């Protein structure tokens, strides 16, 4: 059973699907929080994520030049500080002036920010993709031997273990923030009803700053994890991630962070599993159509259940 298809299914489809799902989930958290609290679809989210990854690898290159090999996860917090700064500046310059205007204006502004950031990254680092000497990502030997002895060998490189661990850590931290801290509860309150938050005396601008900070940390992690996984830095990676991340946010329900995590995992799994040879020996869907899967799920959700699985806001 395991040898017949379990091994292949788990190691080549399920685990990569979950890894991709983690990355989508972290990106979708920021999108859904922004949507819930600031009430707009932030098209620049993918680009901010991408610039965070560039910064992380630049930090690693700079430190590496001094002879210290830095793990991406060590560079991540520093890149996150940069990303948070970028989010806050974007808010101050491009989003705050439109806070009381029609939503479409702020959405268009975010579209502009998306183009500005991508062009800036291309100007600074060049338009070509940067590939790292991949080396072979060896599966974690301990995990391989333990599961192998149990008759269900799992091949997972360390980077995937790091991505899982990082995602779980961030989601647990997020859940603590939203349910246990004053600022987190206020974030949920503003997401619930900005008008009521206003007449309750909640400082909405503080809550908005907190939203950018949380979104920034998750976006940087998503960007860094994606590059850890693909070993490639590309200026278009943010934009490519945007559609599945929106699909994840919509699937989970707009304004629902746990929904976004769940949606991200579902979209990631659906994309990878769509290429599994469910019928016969050929992939069900050619891997080239993977991105279409996220799009299809998003369209179906918007028609059938626009409030998402976790009863988010519908428009």
């Amino acid at each position: 059973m395991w040898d017949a298809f379990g091994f292949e299914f788990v190691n080549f489809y399920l685990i990569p699907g979950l890894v991709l799902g983690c990355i989508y989930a972290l990106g979708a958290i920021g999108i859904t929080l922004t949507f819930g609290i600031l009430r707009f679809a932030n098209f620049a989210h993918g680009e901010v994520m991408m610039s965070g990854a560039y910064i992380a690898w630049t930090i690693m290159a700079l430190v590496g030049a001094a002879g210290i090999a830095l793990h991406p996860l060590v560079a991540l917090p520093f890149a996150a500080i940069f990303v948070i700064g970028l989010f806050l500046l974007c808010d101050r310059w491009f989003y705050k002036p439109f806070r009381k205007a029609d939503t479409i204006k702020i959405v268009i502004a975010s579209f502009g920010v998306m183009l500005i950031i991508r062009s800036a990254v291309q100007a600074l680092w060049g338009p070509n993709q940067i590939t790292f000497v991949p080396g072979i990502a060896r599966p974690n030997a301990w995990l391989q031997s333990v599961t192998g002895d149990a008759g269900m060998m799992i091949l997972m490189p360390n980077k995937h273990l790091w991505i899982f661990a990082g995602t779980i850590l961030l989601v647990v931290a997020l859940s603590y923030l939203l349910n246990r801290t004053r600022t987190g509860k206020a974030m949920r309150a503003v997401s619930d009803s900005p008008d009521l938050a206003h007449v309750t005396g909640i400082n909405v601008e503080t809550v908005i700053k907190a939203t950018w900070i949380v979104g920034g940390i998750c976006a940087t992690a998503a960007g860094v994890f994606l590059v850890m996984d693909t070993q490639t830095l590309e200026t278009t990676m943010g934009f490519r991630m945007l559609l599945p991340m929106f699909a994840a946010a919509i699937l989970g329900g707009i304004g629902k962070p746990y929904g976004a995590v769940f949606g991200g995992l579902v979209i990631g799994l659906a994309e990878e599993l769509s290429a599994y040879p469910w019928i016969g020996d050929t992939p069900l869907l050619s891997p080239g159509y993977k991105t279409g899967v996220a799009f299809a799920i998003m369209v179906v959700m918007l028609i059938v259940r626009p409030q998402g699985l976790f009863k988010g806001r519908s428009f």
Partner: protein
Amino acid sequence: MTQPVLSLNHLNAGYGQTEILHDLSLHVMPNEIVAIIGPNGAGKSTAMKSVLGLLNIREGSVELNGENITDTPAQKVIERGISYVPQTNNVFVNLSVQENLEMGAWTRPNGIEDRLQEMYELFPDLAEKRTQAAGSLSGGQRQMVAMAKALMVDAKILLLDEPTAGLSPKYRGEIFSTIQKIKGTGVPILIVEQNAKQALGVSDRGYVLVDGANRHEGTGQGLANDPEIARMFLGGGH
């Protein structure tokens, strides 16, 4: 003579260019329940929102304990001790009862725990529902949450916008008796009500608003027994 806690003096105000209030004056004295009644569209809720800096005041002034607070933004008004319960959407439906109260205490620097206990004593129904989402409660209980939330700060005055709208008669009575209990804690209350008869019944004084101006004023009992007012507003099934 004692100073009013809240006074609106010759107010001309509205949204954007539309003027809704015309030369409106009213005041609330310490330890007093004051009702604003009147037909639909008379500007009752608008009068209340003018206190919170939510609309455009063209002439006149709003004073809190003699201090001018005209055009002060909502957040500052609340920090100064005016608590407001809107008519609809007055609780955070996805937050638990306790979290709603904590949010109400946003501008309160300390003593939140003690205040929570006081609120659970004032609203015993809420104590057992503290971990439930406010959205899962009945209309009457939500109204209780909204009032408790507004009282989490040391309110100098409580503004209630149609607290019994859409509630069953049983809950209406409960809300009005709670309002009297709140008065007993020393917080004056300004209340806007469709439900004129019951509102005047618990009020010390009342104002009748017609077309954005005060038409009549008097004691709660006096207005409730006034035949002209009875004919105008109290006759219907409100």
